[in-house]
């Protein structure tokens, strides 16, 4: 099976109608590894990320998280779709941070963070809120506990979103262009929060355009284009000496 890898993809394919978005993705992410995924828009980076927590169903190939198939169960030679309850349980072990934050606007920062522990894990209100406070403090928002999202800056909202994902104590964190919707001067505070997370040993897959972050924090860098992985390696290697023409072309535009 998948050995000790946290995420393992084997020939993952995904189409939307006639459009083939993923055309055979193969990769492995080890526990505590930080993998950064770069590539032009439409290359399938976000779709791949969304396949990992089964927000999208893959059409072909195999995708494992922590040694277990995503969305299916294999018995003998047959695949069985997992019931909704199981899909939800597995999603609850994976944190996800979105480009557009997607905080719940009708809840305060604290309520946003405590929501899933309270209602998915069934923790007591006292325990959930105590941990939510700690997490908000950790991302530097101890004073924003009772504030609604629309009174926060983009950077603050994204840090609440990170705290919200962490509240479920995930074994894996997925970041979908977490700084792309932010004003330039707010990018740093979000990247700092992510850097702290990486230092604490969180396994992370980060789809990003922040090459500086990829170089400093990333253990591996993957360049995707046209639904395949064109090139991967350590960030320094790939960024300094790209081997493929497409990588060179892309980096020449973004660096």
């Amino acid at each position, binding site marked *: 099976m998948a050995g000790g890898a946290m995420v393992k993809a084997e020939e993952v394919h995904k189409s939307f109608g006639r459009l083939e978005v993923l055309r055979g993705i193969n990769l492995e992410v080890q526990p505590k590894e930080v993998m950064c995924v770069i590539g032009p828009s439409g290359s399938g980076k976000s779709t791949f990320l969304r396949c990992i*927590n089964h*927000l999208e169903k893959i059409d072909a190939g195999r995708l494992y998280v922590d040694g277990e198939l995503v969305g299916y169960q294999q018995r003998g030679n047959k695949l069985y779709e997992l019931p*909704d*309850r199981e899909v*939800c*349980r*597995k*999603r*609850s*072990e*994976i*944190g*996800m941070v*979105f480009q*557009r934050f*997607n*905080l*719940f*606007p*009708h*809840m*305060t920062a604290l*309520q946003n963070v405590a*929501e*899933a522990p309270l*209602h*998915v894990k069934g923790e007591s209100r006292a325990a959930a809120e105590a941990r939510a406070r700690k997490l908000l403090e950790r991302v530097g928002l101890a004073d924003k506990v*009772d*504030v*609604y*999202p*629309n*009174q926060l800056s983009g950077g603050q909202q994204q840090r609440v*979103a990170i705290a*919200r*994902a962490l509240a*479920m104590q995930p074994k894996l964190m997925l970041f979908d262009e977490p700084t792309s919707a932010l004003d330039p001067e707010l990018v740093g505070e979000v990247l700092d929060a992510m850097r702290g997370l990486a230092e604490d040993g969180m396994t992370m897959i980060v789809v990003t355009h922040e090459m500086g972050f990829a170089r400093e924090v990333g253990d591996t860098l993957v360049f995707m284009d046209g639904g395949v992985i064109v090139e991967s390696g350590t960030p320094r290697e790939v960024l300094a000496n790209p081997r493929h023409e497409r990588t060179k072309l892309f980096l020449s535009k973004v660096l």
Partner: protein
Amino acid sequence: MTEIASGPSSSRAGGRPEAIKAVPVRHYWRWVSGVIVLLIAFAAVDTVATAPQMHWQYVWQYLFGALILDGITLTLELTVAAMVIGIVLGVVLAVMRLSPNPVTSTISWFYIWFFRGTPVLVQIFFWFNLAIILPYLGVGIPFTHIGVSASTNKLITPVMAAILGLGLNEAAYMAEIVRAGIISVEHGQTEAAQALGMTRLQVTRRIVLPQAMRVILPPTGNETISMLKTTSLAFVASVPELFTRADQIASSTFEVVELLFVASIWYLFLTSILTAGQYYLERYFARGAQRELPPTPLQRFRRLLFTWHAAPPLPPDVMPSLGEHR
């Protein structure tokens, strides 16, 4: 001379420039047309008020009469009961309609098709006359004799017939209103909730519906106001609500128009209260969607008084009081 060159900073350094005092544009035609409209309105009111056969003393006499007040109680009870059925069933139907399960979504589609497609008057009348075709109602195991049953006339009283007719019909309309609200919530909200491991029902109840409320509330207030008046249809089932009572009094005293006035005054008064209630309810659900909640009429009035001479508006003192909501 030098002040022009230094630009906006000069105004900060040299204090605020003098406030503009200009002669406002005069709108003479607004005054003229306003007077004309007032004259017409006065003439219309005067015609009715001084109509030779109009007995105003009866209007005042019956306005607080015991029969009418009883009717109002029943009208309010009918409105509340029908709206509760309508809203609860409407939410269930809307969620069913949007479900990926084809059985539930088809049931919901069929329900809405049927109850929206037949007149509510017919539906009330149908429940009222159900006993004609089904003298006994019961629940039991089909094709056996196991179960309980009771006389239809005892189960479906006139009031019950009105509540069923109005409520079940309302549910069809509420279902569409709720569905519109659910659809209006950004899909990213659902995804974020799913990514946290929430089930479909949890996502709907905890995340989507509260946000849909902002879209659902205004038309629901509209429906409630409409329902308050539609309860008058219950008179076909001889339910002694406000209109039926007015009609009964009128048919014995022949003061028909006077009692229509009595009923109308009460309907207007009650709908006015509902309108005010709707305003505050909408304001409550606007939290988190607007930075500053719109002021209540009272706050607006106070602000008007206090800012009559001062230039800058008062800082919003609205949010903290609502921010503590759990």
